[in-house]
């Protein structure tokens, strides 16, 4: 970038030529008042408050839209400028209700701030005022157009950042106002309730509906922490008053999300204060739960577990840790299971989402995590998304994709059976049949090999196994791939050429790839593709699994897995085991333990007698969940520790009330390996305690104390035993987050992996063969059934369904059925249908849509009343033991007529 020299207020400076005068001034610490400018969006020059005097120019100029130029001389605060700014403010105030006494924005209002700074207390231009009714016909956002200063920030954010274009200027002249299309309510248009318009509004025109009269801005304590929902790990601030969260905000400086949030992060916190939080331990006696004291509950557990161990051995016990809990708590949980109980039978829900990623990427590259960082996506010039409904499941990553399309003109390839928002934005959409991923990507690689588009030097120097791999791929015939996948060969060719021909091409994938019996093979195939084209070990490239839960990455990192200690150190490696035995002063089991689904099977076979579940809702989240429920009912002793009385808690012998994310200290690791501080903002309700605290008290009761004076101390122990976390400490995290590997205290952390060398040395090509899904449609069960999520809910709904607004927007389960199939079944939207598989049946409202292809029925798994996982199949990937949530066979029957008239 060329640099230019200019003089601002008499001081010389040199800045890149693409800066505006406002940015240049900011870079030297000079603040220029501005109301419409926001560094994250395109400047519009609407408010003119940022005017400056430029030598040689007669008129004052808006500095936010004025580019710097060589030799320019600028005055930002001359008398003339000050006078002009005052007049501009007075004009704005002449049509503004001076409502600061009760305005929710007061104390944080930019208009108020500048009025004070520029000493403008009233307006000379008294005249007609625009008065509009406050619009609140939606659960979250209050729109008061009377307070709007028409800065246009909300319009730009909604269009540029969110890609929704819900808002725009309408009418003209004095009557100009911001409105939606047809002036409808926000719920009737394309609004996704991200709240990002609200967060940029400089005044009180857009505010959180729920914060009304809940506290003045200066009474709110802001606690910086991390969103408890998805793996993006957005940085949020809990705004707290009287031990209640009043609203959630996010600083524009947030590394992960630049201040942008999604509906769950912004508005999904109400569950924290839900009146049905667990507040005291419960013990089941003769089928009924009774309140108990902590001492009673812990004593009972500390008697029962050793007794079972004595009678049946330590491997008769198993524990499920939690991807919702902190790193420190996951560390304690697996340490408790291994060191206190003496078993490696510890696993968690990662088994159900990305076990195949961990297994596959470790085999290919030597490390099973997202290779690159979220912030790099924006700079990619080709993005290949497969098996990820990114806009709904990783909304903030979707914003990065949209930014790449917009700013960088990146090409987007989407391989997905469902017509997701990303598929609609794609340059090439490969709508392959569910479960045919290996065939599709091998087909693409066949094209790349045949047309010589591969990165020969990279393949030669940095990989192994190439010859065997090419032998297999060469067997693929494109016409057959077309037949298997249903994707026209020409599209496959086009996708292959775009991906191979781009400089910075990144692959993003999620559960559409992993949740198959061929999950590991799917992942290996994507890894092959990246290596073949040399798109790995470089900025804005890589193979990037988007992890689901807020801390699923951390739960894996910290060893809540049956075969590895923290940092993926194998339990069957003697040197590693010695290290942990020494550190924990005890002997440890040497054989890898059981995975989630194997634990269920072991209960059936009477091999597991006791199960300790921390923060998981297995009764809804497991595939073929009737089987899981039967096992939960059967197991002799079940401890469930959670923030709510979940469907799983119902089966427990003891229920322990836990503190939620806002009530404890610790760290989460997001999907890009970023370790971030979670901070306590509230005290837990009733007698609820932090999960880590509970485990420690239990260990102590069992005579093997694990005591730490704070979560920071636990991290010290983690760092001393876990090379990839070796340089992580709370004092360092206070200054900012760190991305692992971060092996020693001076190490800055790692933005992208495998630069120059793969974690395992050479990258390894694996030959993968397309195999059919475990259960395909037949005459009795003619449809493919697939599951997924929506933007407005989270997993089994334990949290999000306790947020009234989210429930209002998305109140019930829907079974998506293609119009062609619906015609055959005589269905219309709103009819009740019964969907059944060989394992069970559920009822839901039908939604007739072409989002899924013909022959496929799709449901989300958030709703206990229509629990999709009653239908899903527990067939497992042989390597990763992940179940095939994405494909099974069902039939559909109409059981009720829609009550709504067709429009």
């Amino acid at each position, binding site marked *: 970038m060329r640099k230019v020299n200019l003089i601002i207020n008499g001081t010389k400076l040199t800045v890149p030529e693409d800066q505006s005068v406002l940015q240049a001034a900011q870079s030297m610490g000079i603040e220029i008042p501005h109301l419409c400018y926001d560094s994250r969006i395109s400047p519009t020059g609407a408010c003119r408050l940022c005017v400056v005097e430029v030598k040689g120019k007669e008129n004052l100029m808006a500095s936010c839209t004025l580019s710097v130029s060589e030799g320019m001389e600028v005055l930002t605060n001359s008398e003339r400028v000050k006078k002009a700014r005052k007049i501009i403010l007075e004009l704005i105030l002449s049509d503004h209700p001076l409502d600061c006494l009760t305005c929710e924005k007061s104390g944080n209002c930019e208009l108020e701030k500048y009025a004070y700074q520029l000493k403008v207390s009233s307006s000379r231009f008294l005249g007609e005022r625009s008065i509009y009714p406050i619009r609140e016909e939606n659960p979250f956002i209050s729109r008061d157009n009377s307070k709007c200063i028409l800065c246009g920030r909300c319009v730009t954010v909604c*269009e540029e950042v969110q890609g929704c*274009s*819900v*808002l*725009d*200027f*309408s*009418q*003209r002249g004095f009557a100009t106002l911001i*409105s*939606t*299309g*047809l*002036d409808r309510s926000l719920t009737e*248009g*394309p609004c996704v309730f991200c709240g990002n318009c609200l967060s940029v509004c400089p005044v009180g025109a857009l505010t959180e509906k729920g914060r009304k009269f809940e506290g003045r801005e200066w009474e709110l304590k802001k606690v910086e922490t991390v969103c408890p929902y998805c793996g993006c790990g957005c940085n949020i601030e809990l705004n707290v008053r009287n031990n209640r969260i009043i609203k959630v905000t996010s600083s524009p400086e947030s590394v992960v999300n630049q201040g942008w949030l999604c509906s769950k992060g912004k508005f999904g916190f109400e569950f924290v204060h839900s009146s049905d939080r667990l507040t005291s331990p419960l013990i089941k006696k003769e089928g009924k739960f009774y309140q108990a004291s902590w001492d009673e509950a812990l004593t009972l557990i500390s008697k029962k577990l050793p007794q079972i161990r004595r009678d049946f051995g330590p491997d008769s016990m198993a524990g499920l840790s939690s991807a919702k809990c902190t790193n420190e708590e996951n560390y304690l949980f697996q340490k408790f299971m291994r060191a206190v109980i003496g078993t490696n039978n510890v696993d968690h829900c990662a088994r159900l989402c990305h076990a195949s990623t961990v297994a596959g990427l470790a085999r290919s590259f030597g490390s099973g995590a997202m290779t690159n960082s979220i912030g790099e996506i924006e700079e990619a010039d080709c993005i290949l998304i497969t098996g990820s409904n990114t806009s709904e499941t990783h909304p903030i990553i979707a914003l990065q994709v949209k930014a790449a399309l917009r700013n960088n003109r990146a090409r987007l390839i989407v391989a997905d059976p469902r017509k997701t928002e990303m598929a609609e934005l794609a340059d090439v959409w490969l709508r392959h049949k569910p479960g045919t991923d290996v065939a599709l990507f091998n087909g693409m690689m066949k094209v790349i090999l045949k047309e010589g588009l591969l990165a020969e030097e990279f393949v030669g120097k940095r990989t192994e196994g190439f010859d065997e791999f090419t032998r297999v791929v060469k067997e693929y015939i494109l016409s057959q791939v077309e037949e298997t996948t249903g994707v026209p060969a020409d599209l496959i060719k086009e996708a292959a050429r775009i991906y191979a021909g781009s400089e910075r091409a990144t692959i993003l994938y999620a559960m559409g790839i992993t949740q198959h019996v061929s999950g590991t093979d799917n992942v290996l195939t994507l890894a092959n593709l990246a290596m073949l084209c040399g798109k790995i070990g470089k900025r804005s490239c890589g193979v990037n699994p988007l992890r689901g839960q807020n801390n699923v990455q951390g739960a894996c990192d910290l060893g809540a897995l049956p075969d590895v200690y923290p940092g993926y150190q194998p339990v069957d490696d003697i040197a590693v085991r010695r290290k942990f035995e020494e550190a924990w002063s005890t002997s440890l089991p040497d054989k890898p333990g059981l995975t989630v689904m194997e634990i269920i099977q072991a209960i059936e076979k009477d091999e597991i007698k006791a199960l300790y579940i921390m923060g998981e809702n297995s009764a809804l989240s497991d595939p073929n969940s009737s089987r899981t429920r039967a096992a939960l009912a059967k197991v002799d002793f079940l401890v469930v520790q959670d923030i709510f009385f979940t469907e799983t808690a119902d089966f427990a012998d003891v229920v322990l009330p836990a503190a939620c994310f806002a009530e404890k200290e610790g760290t989460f690791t997001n999907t890009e390996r970023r370790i971030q501080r979670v901070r306590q903002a509230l005290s837990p309700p009733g007698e609820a305690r932090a999960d880590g605290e509970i485990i420690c008290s239990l260990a102590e009761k069992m005579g093997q104390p694990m005591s730490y004076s704070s979560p920071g101390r636990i991290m010290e122990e983690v760092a001393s035993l876990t090379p990839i976390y070796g340089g992580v400490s709370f004092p360092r995290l206070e200054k900012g987050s760190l991305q692992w590997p971060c092996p020693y205290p001076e190490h800055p952390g790692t933005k992208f992996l495998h630069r120059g060398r793969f974690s395992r040395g050479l990258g390894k090509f694996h030959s993968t063969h397309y195999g059919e899904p475990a259960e395909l449609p037949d005459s009795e069960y003619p449809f493919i059934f697939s599951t997924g999520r929506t933007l407005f809910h989270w997993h089994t709904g334990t949290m999000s369904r306790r947020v009234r607004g989210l429930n209002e927007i998305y109140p019930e389960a829907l079974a998506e059925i293609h119009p062609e199939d619906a015609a055959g079944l005589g269905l219309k939207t709103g009819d009740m249908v019964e969907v059944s598989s060989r394992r069970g049946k559920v009822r839901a409202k039908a939604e007739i849509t072409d989002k899924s292809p013909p022959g496929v029925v799709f449901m989300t798994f958030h709703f206990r009343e229509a629990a999709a996982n009653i239908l899903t199949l527990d067939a497992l990937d042989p390597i990763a033991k992940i179940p095939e949530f994405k494909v099974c066979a069902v039939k559909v029957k109409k059981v009720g007529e829609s009550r709504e008239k067709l429009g």
Partner: protein
Amino acid sequence: MKTDDHVKVGQIIDRHRGEDGTLLPVLQEVQEVLGYLPEEALVEVAEGLGLALSRIWGVVTFYGQFHLSPRGKNTIKVCQGTACHVRGSRRILDKIESVLEIQSGQTTPNLKFTLETVRCLGTCFLAPVMMVNRDYFGKLTLDRIEGILNQFCKG
């Protein structure tokens, strides 16, 4: 909207698809064919041209030429400019409003008349003035109103 109206709107969109700056001509043509711009047509134009509905709403509310509700067969423009005002144009307007039982800006339920006000028709020497379609009526008095309106009721 009737089915053939949908077809007509679709044809207009198809004819302009792919051109630059198509929105205004499309809206004008749709209004010409349908007489006004019903919401459904706006939604169709948005989807057809791949534009945000909010942007289209912005445009149709910005330009006075677009009408969002059905128009009467005859448009009455009553001048409220200074010269007419001085000569009692407010009372003329009141009278028309009471005869037609609508307010300025509205259309009669039988779609015969749409009533509007303007700020000077440029014929102040005739004040107070009104226009019905292309005809001027000057030096108005209250008792002439009904007669004039009646002329336009036929046919």
